[in-house]
C-alpha cells in the first residue's frame, strides 16, 4: 500500500471498518474480527507458542494442529507470567496468523483497529514496548490496550446467572456491566478484578501466582513420582489434567476414599476409590493420537502393571491411574485463594469466573460454597461462569468493538500516536 493511500484512508474521520480483537493469553491467543458490519464474530483459538517436536520440526501458532506426535514436545512462549515479554517470538506468531499472505486471519493493519488485552499490574516498560510495536512496526489504524478482565464487563452478565428465555435477535452492543467481580484463572496466574461501570478498581486488583501451568507441572510431578516419568511430556499431562481433574467439595472424604491404607491393612475401597479412580489411556501417537479417560478397571492389563510385576509386556495399552491427583492438585487454587478481601455486597452478588481453569469440574460450586461461608449472612452470593470461559474476554471485546462511540473514546489512533508519542498513549490507557 502506498503512503499516499494510507494517508487518505486514515486521516479522515472514518474509523476502521473492522477491529481485530486480540486476547493475547500466555497459552492461547483468542483472536477474531468484530465490527458493525460483521454479523456473528467468532474467535479462533491459536496456541501462543513456538513448539518443537522430537523431530526438531518447529510449529508456529496455529500450525501446531498439524503436529501428530506430541511426545517430548517443547514450547517457547512469548508471554511470560501473563505479560507479553518476548516480541521476537510474538511478532513471528502474529505475522503467521494475521499478516502473512496466507495467514488464517489475514488483515491489513492499516485498515484495521486493534483491541489488545493485557494482564493487570503490568510493568510500564512492557506496556510501552507493546504500544511502540503495535504502531511503529505493524501500524494499526486504531488501538486500544486494556485489561483483559475489563472486557468481560461488555458481556451481558446478568444472562449468565439467569439465561433469558428469549434472546434478543440482534444484540448490537450493550452498556458495560455496572458492577462485577471478575476472577480470571488462567495459564499463568489467577487475578481478581473488581469492575465498576466497566472500569477496573486498580487499587483492589489482586493476583495469585497459581495458574494452569503450575497445576500441570504439579500433576507432572506427582505422576512422575508415582507412575511414569512424565516430565518431558507436559503437553500430555495438560491433557490429562483437563480430562480428569476436578475440585472436590469434601476434601477430607475424598482423601479417605483414596487412601491406600497402612501396610498390611490395605483398604478395599482404594482400588476404585468410590468412583474417583480413573484410568487415562495414554496415546502412543501411532494408532491413538489422543488419550482418553475411562473408569478404573482393576483387572485390565496394562503395560505398567506387567512391567512392575516383571512379566513380558503383552498389554496393548499404557494406562495411568489417577486417584487423589484428580482433586488434590486443583485444590491448590483454593488453599491459596482465601477470600480475604472484603468487597461490597454488590460485588459478591456478581462474581464471574473466566479463564481456562474455570472449566475444571466443580470450580463454581466450590467457590460459591466457600464464598457463602465467608460472606455475611444477609449478602447474596452469586458465582457463575460464562458458557465458554476461555473466550469470554474475547466476546466482551467483540461486543465493545460494535460500540463505535465508546470504542473511539477509549482508543488511540495512529495519528494520535504519531503526534503525541508513546508516553501520551501510556497515560491515556492508564487513565491518568
Amino acid at each position: 500500500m502506498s503512503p499516499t493511500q494510507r494517508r487518505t484512508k486514515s486521516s479522515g474521520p472514518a474509523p476502521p471498518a473492522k477491529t481485530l480483537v486480540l486476547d493475547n493469553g500466555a497459552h492461547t491467543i483468542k483472536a477474531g474480527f468484530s465490527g458493525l458490519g460483521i454479523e456473528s464474530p467468532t474467535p479462533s483459538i491459536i496456541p501462543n507458542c513456538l513448539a518443537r517436536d522430537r523431530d526438531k520440526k518447529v510449529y508456529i501458532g496455529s500450525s501446531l494442529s498439524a503436529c501428530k506426535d506430541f511426545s517430548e514436545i517443547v514450547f517457547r512462549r512469548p508471554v511470560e507470567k501473563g505479560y507479553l515479554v518476548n516480541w521476537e517470538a510474538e511478532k513471528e506468531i502474529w505475522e503467521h496468523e494475521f499478516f502473512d499472505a496466507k495467514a488464517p486471519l489475514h488483515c491489513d493493519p492499516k485498515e484495521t483497529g486493534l483491541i489488545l488485552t493485557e494482564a493487570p499490574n503490568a510493568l510500564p516498560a512492557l506496556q510501552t514496548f507493546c504500544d511502540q510495536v503495535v504502531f511503529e512496526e505493524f501500524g494499526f489504524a486504531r488501538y486500544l490496550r486494556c485489561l483483559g478482565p475489563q472486557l468481560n464487563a461488555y458481556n451481558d452478565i446478568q444472562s449468565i446467572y439467569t439465561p433469558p428465555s428469549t434472546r434478543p435477535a440482534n444484540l448490537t452492543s450493550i452498556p458495560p456491566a455496572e458492577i462485577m467481580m471478575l476472577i480470571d484463572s488462567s495459564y499463568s496466574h489467577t487475578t481478581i478484578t473488581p469492575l465498576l461501570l466497566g472500569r477496573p478498581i486498580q487499587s483492589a486488583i489482586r493476583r495469585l501466582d497459581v495458574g494452569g501451568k503450575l497445576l500441570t507441572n504439579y500433576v507432572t510431578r506427582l505422576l512422575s513420582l508415582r507412575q511414569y516419568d512424565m516430565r518431558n511430556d507436559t503437553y500430555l499431562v495438560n491433557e490429562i489434567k483437563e480430562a480428569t481433574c476436578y475440585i472436590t467439595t469434601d476434601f477430607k472424604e475424598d482423601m479417605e476414599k483414596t487412601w491406600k491404607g497402612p501396610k498390611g491393612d490395605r483398604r478395599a475401597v482404594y482400588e476404585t476409590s468410590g468412583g474417583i479412580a480413573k484410568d487415562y489411556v495414554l496415546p502412543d501417537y501411532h494408532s491413538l493420537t489422543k488419550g482418553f479417560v475411562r473408569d478404573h478397571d482393576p483387572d485390565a492389563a496394562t503395560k505398567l502393571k506387567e512391567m512392575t510385576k516383571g512379566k513380558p509386556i503383552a498389554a496393548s495399552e499404557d494406562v495411568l491411574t489417577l486417584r487423589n491427583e484428580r482433586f488434590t492438585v486443583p485444590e491448590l487454587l483454593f488453599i491459596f485463594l482465601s477470600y480475604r478481601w472484603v468487597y461490597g455486597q454488590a460485588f459478591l452478588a456478581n462474581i464471574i469466573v473466566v479463564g481456562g481453569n474455570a472449566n475444571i469440574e466443580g470450580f463454581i460450586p466450590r467457590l460459591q460454597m466457600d464464598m457463602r461461608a465467608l460472606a455475611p449472612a444477609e449478602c447474596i452470593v452469586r458465582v457463575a461462569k460464562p458458557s465458554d470461559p476461555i473466550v469470554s474476554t474475547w466476546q466482551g471485546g467483540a461486543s465493545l468493538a460494535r460500540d463505535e462511540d465508546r470504542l473511539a473514546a477509549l482508543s488511540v489512533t495512529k495519528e494520535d500516536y504519531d503526534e503525541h508519542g508513546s508516553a501520551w498513549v501510556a497515560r491515556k490507557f492508564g487513565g491518568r
Partner: protein
Amino acid sequence: MNFGVREVALGTRANAAPGWAYIPDTGVNASVTALQPSSRKRARNQHVASHQETTAKQDAKILRELAALDRENHRDVSIPVPIRHRDNAGRVSHGKVTPNVRKILQSQKTFANHLSDYEALGSPLTASAPIAQPSAAIPNTPAARGTPGSAAPHLTSKGTRSHKKKDPNAVSTPTPLRKVSSALQITTPAAVKTESSTADVQMIDAPILSQGSGAVPAVHPLDNDPLLISRIPGMPSQAEIDWLLAAPPLTYNEARGSWVEEDQRKPVRQFCEVCGRSVLQDMGHERAMGYGVGVFGMAEALH
C-alpha cells in the same frame, strides 16, 4: 580458645615464610563461627522473628520447588525463530523498522529482568501518582510514602534518560511537563485533559442503576411487608466512585496478595507434599506410616 598458649614474641622481623605461628586470640573467630552456626543451640528457646515454622534450608527448598513448578519445559530449551520467516516478506511488508522496534525485537530480556529493572528504578509511576498520596486506604505503597523528598523525582528523570531516549516526556510525572516549555509540551497536557475528561464524562453519564435487560417487576401487595422487604445498601457517592476508579494501578509486587494474620498462624492442617495427605503436626509417626523412608528418598532424588 588459645588453650593457654602464650604468644611468642617473634621479634620485629616479619616472617614471610609459609607455616604457622601463634597469634593472640582476640574475639570471635569467623572461621570457627562459620563451622558452628550461631542459631542451633543458643537459639533453641529464643523467639524467632519469622512466624513461619520453616528453617532457611526449608525456605530455600520451597523456593526451588516453586521455581521448578513455574517452568515452561522440564529442560532448558531454546527454540530460535525460523530464519526463512525472518528474512522474508514478514519484515519488509511493514516498512522500515524503527530504532525502538529494533531494540524491542532484539531484546532477550525475561520477565524477571524487566521486573528487577523496574524495581531498581524505584517504581516511578506509583511514586508520582498524586491520587495515591492522601489515601490511607491504598495498601502498602512504600514508594509513594517516600516521595516528598528529592530522591524520587531524581530517579524518575534518570529513568527517563536511560530507558526512553526518544521521548522527552516519557514518564508521566506532572513535574517534567510543567518544567519543560516547548510548544509540543504545552499542547500535550491539554490534550490529555480533554481526552480523559470526555472519557470520564461518558462513563459517569451512564445511569448507575440501570440494568441492561432488566424489566421492572410487577408490584406485589406484600412489597412493603417488613419480613419480605429487601435492603439495598446505599450507593456510594459519585465522588467515591471517581476516587476508586482514578486510583493508579498497583505495581506487580503490590498486587500479590499479602500475608494476613491467618497465614502467619501455625497452619491447622499440613499436607504432605508427596502424597497430598494431611499430616498431623505433632504426630511424626503419621508421616512414616503411609509410606516408608524409601518414597521420601526417591522424592529427594527426583527433585
